[in-house]
């Protein structure tokens, strides 16, 4: 393995909770407040996953107080404590940007039903 590949891989997290597009995921973000560190959770629907290796990010969308909020989370950042898969979604595309234009029930992703 050459040097630059080794550099790209050295800060990768060994294990990432598997989740897919359309899933509802809770991400624990480490926040430093007044010298103290605490963990803040953000729950949202995975609408996009881009990049590879150390640059991989995931876009989470949720409706907060009637307002659409999106957060782009760098998966391998040391500030991200972990992911929790809350609900599996059933979707047919890789990018759910269409959710931005929808309201109410249409803005929801159907839950995956396992038979």
């Amino acid at each position: 393995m050459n040097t630059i590949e080794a550099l790209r891989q050295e800060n990768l997290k060994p294990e990432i909770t598997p989740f897919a597009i359309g899933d509802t995921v809770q991400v624990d973000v480490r926040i430093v407040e007044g010298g103290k560190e605490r963990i803040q959770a953000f729950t949202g629907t995975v609408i996009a996953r881009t990049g590879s290796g150390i640059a991989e990010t995931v876009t989470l969308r949720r409706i907060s107080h009637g307002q659409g909020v999106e957060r782009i989370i760098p998966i391998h950042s040391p500030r991200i404590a972990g992911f929790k898969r809350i609900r599996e979604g059933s979707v047919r595309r890789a990018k759910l940007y269409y959710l931005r234009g929808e309201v109410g029930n249409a803005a929801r992703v159907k839950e995956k039903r396992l038979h």
Partner: protein
Amino acid sequence: MKKGLIGKKLGMTHIYTETGVMVPVTAIEVGPCPVIALKTQAKDGYCAVQLGFGVRKAKNVSKAVLGNLAPAGLQATPPAIIREVRLDADPEYKVGDKLGADLFAANEFVDVTGRTKGRGFAGVVRRWNFGGGRGSHGGAWERRTGSIGMCSAPGKVEKRRKMPGQMGNVNRTVQSLQVMQVRAEQNLLLVKGAIPGPTGGLVMVRSAVKK
């Protein structure tokens, strides 16, 4: 004190700082750079250090150059590249020393010189970001230069007018790049941001002029 090294661009990646901030970095393999000769104010009229980098076959090197390498003991393994780095005082190194990444420290600022990627003969849209014309409605003016000046009043085209021509393949220096990490055992410098040239390109890393 000024200092400098010869290096090779390895490519770009990201790193995270302790606070979790993602920083884009370029990895540069600097050295080992053997000191071949020293230039002093008294003897040469200027202060510099002559450095080597890489290795090539001795049979491909002229005897004049091999003679120059003799004091450093590099006749069997002549460096592929020999460059001088200007210093602001007489060099403190000795001939035969090997300089590496530990010459620089983290958070220091450096200037990086390299040869940019050649783009060949480029038009004004690519070379100077001209807007160009519209693609439809029957016009023939799409990517052309347009007017290059006035009429008989100046009677000539102003100097440095932006026109088509060779783009890239010139030496460029990017100033004041922060050194994020130094890895002495791999002779690796990680500097913040981009540097000129392709991956594998030769670069000079010098102390920043403006910091």
